[in-house]
């Protein structure tokens, strides 16, 4: 009888240990998940994709501001600031999407001329009319 009770107790202890181990594993997985998302976001900051996007947008805005009708300039998709996936002009602002990072605010320019963008195979052409 004593042997049976002893067996039950040790089995209970093992069950408890198993549950505890499961919980610890789940916790570790969750913590690793949270930290990997955190590290990915931090890496994105260090990579300074947002800053490079700002650089391209501001450069384009200055070029547009100083351009006169008849001028056009090319923005290569494989740019020194990264791969430019889109250049758009909307409501007097220039928007540049860089390496999948979509443009949220863009940058305002003050040109009084008509500005449009034509997409070609390897570049975007900004045309001032």
């Amino acid at each position, binding site marked *: 009888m004593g042997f049976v009770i002893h067996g039950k107790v040790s089995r209970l202890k093992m069950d408890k240990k198993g549950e505890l181990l499961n*919980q610890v594993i789940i916790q570790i997985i969750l913590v690793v998940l*949270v*930290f990997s998302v955190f590290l990915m*976001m931090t890496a994105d900051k260090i990579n300074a994709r947002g800053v490079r996007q700002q650089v391209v947008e501001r450069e384009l*805005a*200055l070029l547009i501001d100083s351009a006169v009708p008849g001028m056009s300039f090319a923005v290569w998709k494989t740019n020194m600031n990264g791969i430019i996936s889109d250049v758009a002009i909307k409501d007097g602002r220039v928007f540049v999407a860089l390496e999948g990072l979509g443009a949220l605010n863009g940058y305002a320019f*003050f040109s*009084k001329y008509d500005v449009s963008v034509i997409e070609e195979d390897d570049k975007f052409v900004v045309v001032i009319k």
Partner: protein
Amino acid sequence: MNKKAQLGSSVITMYRVLVIIIISVVILGVSSIVYSHHINIRDSEAMILVREISGCVIKEAVVDLGKLKVEEDIFEYCGYEEEEMERFFVSVKVEIDGSEVFEIEGGDSGSLWVRDIFKNAAATKDIKKYEPGNFVKWYSVSVLDGEVEKDGKVIVEVVANVE
């Protein structure tokens, strides 16, 4: 372990994960604010706008006051839309023999006191990123007022504010 205890430990686990998420978000938020990088091109914008306005006001080194006096707003005179120029202030002064004979402005003149704050070195590093762009240039011109043409000076100033 009974069901109540299991539920309790799950709640604790969720709580711990939630705390980790909150800490991560706070660290990320603070680092985003502290290490955010502002690229200021307002001085360059002011220079370009001074060039544009000068080109519009001065034709072949002559300023025609007769044309300028009709307009009240320099942006309208030069064909800019008011909405696009909300963050700019432009002042064009015409002088003959050192005394001002005419002035035309455009935009919010309140930008001038913001410029003055930064000029007086009162700006701390924290607000330095909001410093407006400023550029002043003067040109020696002939001023045409009716039939009379005199030697004079045009001073063009642009203040470019934060977006």
